[in-house]
């Protein structure tokens, strides 16, 4: 028939909260772009509601959250709640930024499959996304 089905991995990269340090988020967005993903980048100062609504409207496969303010245990559960409230229950979640090792278990319990801290090779993030999103 017409052109073959072409599934692209869609990723939302978002920064919840009030810190304005978006360098890391942009580097990750760029690496995923170069890895062949379609990356929706929403910029800084996003509320949990805005992130969940963007994930719903854009029908993404993956949501990556970046945070450097230390408010991850405050904001990430609210993002997860807002996603659930909208029935967005099948996205792959990962996060990155300044996140103490001690918080790993709590974030995993929330549903974050990976935490990428400073020094991560961006190719590892691309690999992670492709390994976890089934086409």
């Amino acid at each position, binding site marked *: 028939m017409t*052109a073959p089905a*072409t599934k*692209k991995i869609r990723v939302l990269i978002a920064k919840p909260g009030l810190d304005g340090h978006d360098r890391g988020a942009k580097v990750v967005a760029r690496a995923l772009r170069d890895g062949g993903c379609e990356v929706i980048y929403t910029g800084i100062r996003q509320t949990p509601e*805005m992130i969940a609504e963007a994930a719903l409207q*854009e029908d993404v496969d993956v949501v990556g959250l970046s945070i450097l303010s230390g408010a991850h245990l405050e904001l990430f559960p609210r993002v997860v709640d807002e996603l659930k409230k909208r029935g967005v229950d099948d996205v792959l979640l990962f996060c990155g930024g300044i996140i103490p090792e001690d918080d790993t278990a709590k974030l995993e319990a929330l549903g974050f499959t990976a935490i990428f801290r400073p020094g991560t090779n961006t190719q590892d993030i691309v690999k992670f996304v492709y390994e976890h999103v089934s086409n």
Partner: protein
Amino acid sequence: MDDILERFLRGERRALARVISRVENQTPEGREYVRALFPRSGRAHTIGVTGGAGSGKSTLTGALAAEYRRRGRTVGIVAVDPSSPFTQGAILGDRIRMQDLALDEGVYVRSMASRGALGGLAPTIDDVVAVMDAFGFDYVLIETVGAGQDEVEIAGTALTTILVNNPGTGDDIQAMKAGIIEIADILVVNKADHPGADVLVSQLQALLALAPAGSRRPPILKTTAIRGEGFGALADAVAEHRAYLESSGGLAEQRAQDARHQVLSIARAILLEQIRAATPAEELEALVLRVASRELDPHSAAELLAAAVRR
């Protein structure tokens, strides 16, 4: 079939999002959805927003949507950004300029990658617009990739096309050239707070004065999208264009022209796929190499491919 269509018809936004993905990925379900929903489309006023990279298309699209919300209307937005020709990846960043609408239930924003399409849109744009239209939005705004001089495809997708210009981006000879400026139903000079805006407006006016007598002259409006200035007038100009289309008989003509264009382009895609299917990859590669080595000219090679389908 699953219950997605049912949920779509109940107005569930998540179902709309899923339908768009499947249409965009050109899956068999996606085509079924288009077949089912197409008869419900044709009610929304589709508005194209085009112009150069950085001209303010996204901000203007967001501000125009906000104006429609003030008027109590609902808006679907499709914003296209370019895919990489090398990796097929894309950064879709138009939402950033539309944050004020992020939590408004009367607005739905969808980012699309161009996925190799030329002309500033995406291969499945007409289907995605029809789906949004069928969902029941009063307006569907379509923002193109940053367009230069020749990306005129939007005129075949939208009923009303807005061309966004900026002061300080070339003299009146640029505006005299053929191409994108000819498809504009409304000309906007955005960033009107920058120096040179009035000069650009008068250059555009002088240019339009050269148009053949009796042809419609697109209005020229000034906006400062970042501050939301000029949008009452812009929404009025869009309504005037719609009224003009309806009274002049242009609406039926434009719908027929758009349908012709769409059907032919889908037929072209089907034929191309049949050509690919009729010729084994090695055979195609061998043919291509004969052209590359100048042994065969490209026209004869293409004739051979087309002949393979007819056999």
